[in-house]
């Protein structure tokens, strides 16, 4: 019995899960303290609102509808998280996922409105654009030794400005927003296959949701079961050994970032082609989806399956933040909590180390 208990804490999956939980609890706790500082009287309510999200609505059907909204945004977030995760496996920190997301959104929306293309073609074009952007980072990394974080950030801003320029051509006359896809680009709307019915006729719930989960599973299979995954992970853990064994490590870096770019861009397609939101061509900051993807990837223990749940959680509290009492707090409190969670994820290795040590000590004593 005792021996089992010891191996329980030493189990890597258990450790990851526990570490993620610690990150979540600590993140929420620190967020709560910030709320207390701002205004002690509403802090408890506010943090509960964030945690409850759609459950703040007493009516079951309404709550269901809002759960749908959370899911609509979880799908793109999951894709961004997978993009970050996939790249991280070859040892690259794909902060450029944010820009790949932007370019995916821009291309998909433009193709939908300007060319009236069907959704799947829009998605393919967006993925190609995201992959191309990823390839730029990859080329710079493998042939010019440019740190992928810095190049990623630069490309994020370049993408934002160029997509703003592109989408001005399909914006509404009176507002900075792009035209509604539901009206001006019907062919591009993602099919819902009746999924909307499940969420109290939330028309934004489309095949994107199950598709994203399916892709997460696919990513897991590729990483764990295939030769390609074996090579990627070997490159990420020790690129010198990868080179020594004859793996084309430069090509692998580029291909990985291309896949990462395509994933993030597909995520953007999943969101903007649901019609949930229109692109504001006056945006002056890069959408946070790509950055939240980092949080979700690390919170999910860099495991594609774990990332599904982590993405939902991050999106859940982000949505919840929108419901806090605006006369006291701002909705960015959720961003604060998720960035705290990323920060705390930096400590995961240390936490695991402590757990192993603790387990070993206990095992030793018994």
């Amino acid at each position, binding site marked *: 019995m005792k021996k089992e208990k010891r191996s329980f804490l030493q189990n890597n999956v258990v450790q990851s899960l526990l570490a993620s939980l610690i990150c979540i609890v600590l993140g929420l706790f620190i967020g709560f303290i910030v709320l207390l500082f*701002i205004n002690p009287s509403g802090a408890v309510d506010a943090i509960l609102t964030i945690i409850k999200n759609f459950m703040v609505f007493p009516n079951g059907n309404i709550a269901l509808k809002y759960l749908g909204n959370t899911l609509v945004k979880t799908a793109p977030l999951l894709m961004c998280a997978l993009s970050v995760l996939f790249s991280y496996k070859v040892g690259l920190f794909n902060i450029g996922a944010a820009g790949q997301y932007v370019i995916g959104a821009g291309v998909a929306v433009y193709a939908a409105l300007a060319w009236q293309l069907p959704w799947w073609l829009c998605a393919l074009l967006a993925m190609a654009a995201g992959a191309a952007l990823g390839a730029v980072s990859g080329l710079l990394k493998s042939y010019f030794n440019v740190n992928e974080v*810095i190049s990623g950030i630069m490309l*994020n801003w370049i993408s934002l400005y160029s997509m703003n320029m592109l989408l001005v051509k399909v914006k509404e006359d009176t507002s900075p927003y792009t035209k509604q896809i539901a009206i001006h680009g019907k062919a591009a709307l993602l099919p819902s296959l009746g999924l909307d019915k499940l969420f109290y006729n939330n028309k934004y719930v489309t095949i994107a949701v199950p598709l994203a989960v399916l892709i997460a599973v696919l990513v897991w299979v590729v990483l764990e079961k295939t030769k390609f995954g074996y090579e990627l992970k070997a490159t990420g853990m020790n690129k010198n050994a990868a080179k020594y064994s004859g793996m084309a490590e430069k090509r692998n870096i580029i291909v990985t970032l291309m896949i990462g770019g395509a994933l993030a861009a597909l995520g953007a397609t999943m969101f903007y082609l649901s019609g949930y939101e229109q692109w504001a061509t006056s945006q002056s900051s890069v959408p946070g989806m790509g950055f939240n993807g980092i949080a979700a990837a690390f919170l999910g223990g860099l495991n594609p399956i774990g990332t599904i749940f982590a993405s939902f959680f991050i999106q859940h509290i982000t949505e919840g933040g929108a419901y806090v009492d605006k006369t006291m707090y701002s909705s960015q409190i959720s*961003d604060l909590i998720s960035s705290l969670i990323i920060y705390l994820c930096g400590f995961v*290795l*240390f936490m695991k180390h402590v757990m192993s040590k603790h387990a070993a000590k206990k095992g030793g004593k018994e």
Partner: protein
Amino acid sequence: MTLLLQYTLLYASVLILVALGGCFSERSGVINLGLEGIMVMGALGGALTMKYMAGLPGIVIVLTTILISALFGLIYSLLLAVACINFKADQTIVGTALNLLGTALATVIVKAVNTAANPDDVSSNVQYIAAKKSLIVNIGGFEFNWFMLLAFVLLITAYVLLYKTRFGLRLMACGEHPQAADSVGINVYKMRYAGVMISGVLGGLGGIVYITAGVSEWKFENGVAGFGFLALAVMIFGQWKPLRIALAALLFGMFRALSNVYSGFDFLTALNIPSTVYNMMPYIISLLVLTFTSKNSKAPKAEGIPYDKGQR
């Protein structure tokens, strides 16, 4: 033309400060990707100081603003130091987290401040137009800004500190070969703390200089728009050497300044290039510059590797 010079010098000052910050941190062995966040926090401290001190004598405002910005940057940088030095956390993750956290935290704080003052005000803007006047001395059309002097003085100080003092020698040893430094009794952890904290001070200062450069109110939701990363590009282009950093900063500063003042040049307006292109310019330039300078970079050898006393 004066305007271009003025803005070039201002933005170069920002880049010099922040890039030097990055330089000190990396010279000690810690990659500071969180400069962006540190800038935001420094900007926040400075902006709030200026907002509430409007009306006081100019010199008091300038000095207090400098002090508070530096202090905010310093305190915030401790988050990086603790995680990366004591807990050996991944420097990329922590740096990125600090960037996101900086913007989120600043927004939350500013909104809280604004709503407390006026329940209808849910913006993340801070106005400092009144106090900004005390930063500036008008010399025949050229608006000299005290921050330019600050950047110049700190540049010289940084050079002397790195190359002429015991502290500099030890700091660089920790970034190049921490085991060697440790073996001669230098406390690597302390030196790395010093490096990161200096980067906090300089990054914080860079933040306030940046937001006061072109405008007189700042929307904190936008953070500092990748400027911290431009500074890192400047640092790499400057090969981690203060004087080369200064030259690189002038070049980058000019491109950034162009987006503010291009409309003042007839031949530029005649080209009829959308303003967005000018906005993109600094990022494109830095990407190009990095492409051609990163291959043979003289980065400190031990940067990014957590130092563990046990592993020798």
